[in-house]
């Protein structure tokens, strides 16, 4: 089985080709007008149930719609390729054997030489660099890849099954499965890639699929815009990542993971000076893909895609690629303590920041989206304190419970006929019991209720943060621990708020909506149950305290290559301290759960409403997501040319004008001379600055004629001048 490694990504690729070709051929004759016209109202997941409320969408015999051509074929190819990939992945991993992985085994497969550079030049000044100057198409599975491989293919398969029910009435069914299969291919290349360039290919591939699937309802402007936003924000991250890859290549002369990390670990003295910059560049890439502050803005908008996509790409797999990459490069990061501090602080800040936004969101998917951003922050916090295995542990459990939550949300949206606003839900527990119970279990899990999966993984992270030591800032770990603990409380609160508003209390929607609330078909509920089961038990691979309880830590230990001369102390476990930390976590979670229950179920939302009245400023800032999107719009989107001028003018008008206004207030009743001075000199200065800037921009914007020929002329003229200067003065 291990020799079939190449087939794992290939099978979904073939599925993509078949689905894509069949879809294109079956749709070209119909014309554009027939396209994808079955959307529901703006702002909701376009779902056919909304346009045909009288027809039960789970019967499969929907007379009001056209038959979807080749639906059976698309289902078999789409779900089948995911199943085969999953079986092959399990086969390959268990053929090599979990025990062998624990002992550091890995299996590589070089398919062909990709870029034979053949430079053979002397490698810089760094002794011990690899310097083989070629890039191969290599697939490699070691313990880290194996872990990712197992849960990506398994969760991927479940979500394919779910999609066959959820997307069953979409005109673009074949297109959806084609994209989903392409995503599986790219994700598997990302996970199995044995060098940085393969990782990057997969990285860009999943980014492309993310873009395509966010913009799946491309005839709706908000979905198309969300797709573009995701793509552009990811480009910023990828810019850093690709610079990081260049840096690796320049430093080591190779991109192969094994060789590069071995070289770095063997000779840390030569490489340490470069590592801070290198790690920060790589981390910029991770920030983009894994939605960390300040590049997190695309993920909440990505919820414009269909819900299975949100579950698979924007919760379980793709967004964890950044954590995977940081864990993969742990050798580099451990050599760069300053970069580690940045990672930890960004992670902790993102966790807290996103959790506070999640408190006030009213869209069921937006709450989960901010929750995902927050949990990803947790994972980076773990990586930042050097707890890479704990971070990956949380990646794994998060994949299960967050996929379960998203799919449950999809089932709720399905039941509500496209409604996503939790203010119009309530009391759904009895109407859709299977969805309710699975959602309930996943909510308990993410809230950190004892002996469920996330309890163990979050506890491992918090313990690691508590024990962390930063030489540069010794007090930092305790602050980070407090942030992590507080965030855990917030998480429990907003998740139970979501649960209360959705499933408990009285129904708040319209009577028509109430009449056709119905449980989803088995193709959707069975994956939910499997995921709910996994979000109960998957934590038992990482039980602390007990001897050999932390199986996942031992499994992943081989990726932590020992660095020569670097003395890292192992986890020092004190039973009483460990138990105290656990007790603190449970206490904070209980407070969060109790508050959410008493405010939103018992109190029916009166307390939050009163608090909102008391602190209107805070309330407005939180509900508007701290105006980050607006700030980005103003600073970056409107451009630094015209928009920049206006922005500065407004700063002048609001901030700098405070000076003359304040002066006027202090010298109230002062002499006429002073007021003249104010009026003509100070105001003149203020308005003069603004006016000058505005005038300057009025001149500069002329250069943006929008005519390519003008640009070509200027370019040609510039080139001519450069060459002339070079020839005359060399």
């Amino acid at each position, binding site marked *: 089985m291990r020799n079939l490694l190449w087939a794992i990504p290939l099978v979904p690729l073939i599925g993509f080709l078949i689905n894509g070709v069949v879809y294109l051929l079956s749709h070209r004759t119909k014309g554009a007008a027939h396209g994808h016209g079955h959307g529901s109202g703006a702002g909701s997941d376009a779902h056919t149930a909304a346009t045909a409320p009288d027809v039960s969408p789970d019967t499969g015999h929907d007379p009001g719609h056209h038959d979807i051509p080749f639906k059976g074929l698309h289902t078999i190819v789409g779900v089948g390729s995911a199943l085969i990939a999953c079986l092959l992945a399990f086969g390959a991993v268990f053929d090599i054997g979990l025990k062998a992985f624990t002992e550091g085994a890995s299996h590589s497969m070089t398919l062909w030489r990709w870029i034979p550079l053949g430079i053979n030049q002397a490698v810089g000044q760094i002794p011990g660099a690899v310097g083989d100057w070629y890039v191969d198409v290599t697939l490699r599975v070691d313990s880290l890849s194996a872990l990712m491989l197992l849960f990506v293919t398994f969760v991927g398969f479940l979500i394919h099954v779910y999609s066959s029910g959820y997307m069953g009435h979409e005109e673009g069914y074949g297109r959806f499965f084609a994209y989903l299969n392409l995503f599986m291919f790219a994700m598997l290349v990302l996970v199995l890639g044995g060098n940085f360039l393969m990782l990057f290919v997969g990285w860009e591939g999943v980014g492309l699929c993310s873009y395509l699937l966010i913009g799946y309802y491309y005839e709706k402007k908000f979905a198309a815009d969300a797709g573009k936003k995701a793509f552009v924000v990811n480009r910023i991250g990828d810019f850093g990542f690709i610079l990081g890859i260049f840096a690796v290549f320049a430093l080591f002369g190779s991109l192969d993971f094994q060789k590069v990390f071995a070289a770095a670990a063997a000779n840390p003295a030569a490489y340490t000076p470069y590592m801070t910059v290198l790690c920060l560049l790589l981390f910029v890439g991770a920030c983009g893909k894994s939605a960390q502050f300040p590049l997190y803005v695309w993920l909440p908008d990505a919820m414009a895609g269909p819900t299975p996509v949100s579950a698979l790409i924007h919760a379980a797999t793709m967004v964890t690629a950044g954590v995977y990459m940081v864990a993969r490069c742990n050798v580099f990061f451990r050599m760069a303590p300053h970069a580690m501090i940045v990672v930890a602080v960004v992670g902790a800040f993102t966790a807290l920041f996103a959790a506070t936004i999640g408190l006030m969101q009213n869209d069921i998917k937006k709450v989960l989206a901010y929750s995902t951003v927050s949990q990803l922050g947790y994972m980076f916090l773990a990586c930042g304190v050097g707890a890479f295995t704990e971070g990956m542990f949380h990646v794994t459990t998060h994949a299960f419970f967050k996929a379960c939550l998203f799919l449950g949300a999809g089932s709720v949206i399905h039941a509500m006929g496209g409604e996503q606003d939790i203010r119009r839900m309530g009391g759904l527990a009895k109407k859709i019991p299977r969805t309710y119970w699975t959602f309930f279990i996943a909510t308990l899990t993410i809230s950190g209720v004892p002996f469920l999966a996330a309890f163990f993984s979050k506890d491992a992270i918090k313990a690691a943060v508590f024990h962390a030591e930063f030489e540069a800032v010794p007090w930092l770990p305790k602050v980070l621990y407090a942030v992590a603990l507080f965030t855990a409380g917030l998480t429990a609160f907003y998740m139970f708020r979501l649960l209360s508003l959705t499933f408990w209390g009285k129904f708040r929607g319209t009577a028509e909506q109430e009449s056709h609330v119905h449980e989803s078909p088995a193709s959707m509920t069975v994956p939910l149950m499997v995921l709910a089961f996994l979000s109960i038990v998957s934590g038992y691979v990482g039980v602390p305290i007990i001897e050999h309880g932390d199986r996942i830590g031992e499994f992943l230990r081989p990726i932590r290559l020992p660095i020569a001369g670097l003395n890292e102390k192992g986890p020092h476990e004190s039973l009483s301290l460990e138990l105290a930390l656990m007790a603190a976590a449970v206490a904070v979670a209980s407070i969060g759960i109790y508050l959410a229950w008493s405010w939103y179920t018992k109190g029916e939302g009166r307390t939050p409403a009163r608090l909102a009245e008391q602190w209107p400023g805070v309330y407005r800032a939180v509900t508007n997501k701290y105006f980050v999107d607006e700030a980005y719009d103003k600073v970056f989107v409107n451009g630094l*040319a*015209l928009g920049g001028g206006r922005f500065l003018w407004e700063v002048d008008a609001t901030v700098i004008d405070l000076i003359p206004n304040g002066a006027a207030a202090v010298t109230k009743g002062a002499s006429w001379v002073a007021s003249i001075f104010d009026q003509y000199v100070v105001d003149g200065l203020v308005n003069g600055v603004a006016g000058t800037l505005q005038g300057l921009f009025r001149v*500069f*914007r*002329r*250069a*943006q*004629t*929008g*005519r*390519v*020929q003008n640009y*070509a*002329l200027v370019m*040609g003229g510039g080139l001519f001048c450069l060459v002339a200067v070079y020839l005359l003065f060399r």
Partner: protein
Amino acid sequence: MTITLNHYMIVSFLLFSIGFMGVLVRRNFLTILMSVELMLNAVNLNLIAFSRRLSDLTGQVFSIFVITIAAGEAAIGLALTISFFRQRRTLDVEEANTMQG
């Protein structure tokens, strides 16, 4: 008279200049595309001439690359032309100025 490297370079220079002027002054989308092709081929000529002179095949390999890229460029350019024409009912590049600042 033997044809030396200089002759090739002069022809190549002339071709490139004609192409560049075409890009700058012509108003028709298609003509500009053709002018770009002219420039690319001027570069090809240069590459191949030097490749002969230096007996190094790299130049010829590169010209193959250039031809390949040129094919892609032509495909994209023509697609853009068609979509532009559908929107504006004209091929005048002066009309393509919505990016004006």
